[in-house]
């Protein structure tokens, strides 16, 4: 039997890798990819807790569906912003987008 903690450790590793990508990458699109990895790790956790918890409650899967919708919205707006910034300032490097930096 696959233990619950295997899934949780797998999701923790995926989340940490995504966190590294978000913090270390220069390219704004690569940062969005890191966020996708983190959201996927969260989804694995939600579904694993549903499977190993009370099966009469579907909350884990319902939340995962909501996370899918939020991820789609986030990536649509994020990529639109990246393309808009690329048009106006000709860069997609996150550290060069510092107009509002104090």
């Amino acid at each position, binding site marked *: *039997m*696959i233990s*619950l*903690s*295997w*899934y*949780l*450790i*797998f999701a*923790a*590793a*995926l*989340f*940490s*890798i*995504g*966190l*590294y990508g978000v*913090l*270390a*990458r*220069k*390219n704004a*699109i*690569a940062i*969005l*990819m*890191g966020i*996708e*990895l983190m959201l*996927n790790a969260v*989804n*694995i956790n939600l*579904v694993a807790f*549903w*499977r*190993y918890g009370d*099966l009469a409650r*579907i909350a884990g*899967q*319902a939340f*995962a*569906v*909501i996370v*899918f*919708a*939020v*991820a*789609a*919205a*986030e*990536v*649509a*707006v994020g*990529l*639109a912003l990246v*393309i808009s910034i*690329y048009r106006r300032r000709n860069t*997609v*490097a996150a550290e060069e987008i510092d107009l509002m930096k104090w």
Partner: protein
Amino acid sequence: MSGLEIFFLVVAVVTLVAALLVVTTPNLVHAALWLILALFGVAATFVLLNATFLAVVQVVVYIGAIAVLMIFAIMLTRRVMKDSGPQTNSNWVWAALLGLALFGGLTFVLLHSDAAGVSLPALSAHADPLAQLGQELVSPNAYVIPFELASVLLLAAMIGAIVVAWKN
């Protein structure tokens, strides 16, 4: 070790290696392709967890829409970032240390929790998780408000994305 355990380990290793390549490959198009492999691995994990509907949604929405959208965006903005130069900022050591610390801390907590002893409840033959999910998502006693909010959020995000990316 049972066959399922070996399958889980293979899926986990492939997913984690693909995820590592996503965050380290200098070439962003390759990173997007590795992201697709990692998303497939997560879909396989959903299948292992008997969440077959979510596995299908993962393939259709994440791989079919989100990853393809990312590849489009990468190709539209490709000229400004050289594929060869360093793709990480000056804080990448701290980022790696933070990631490792988070993983170590979470693993430590998980190994000392009672998560390892949780037994897997059997799926009864007559219960259908998909029908249950569909009913609860639109049931006033369950998740209809988050579901409708997510719909409105998606619509607002779509209109917002069009407005933001509009020329001029």
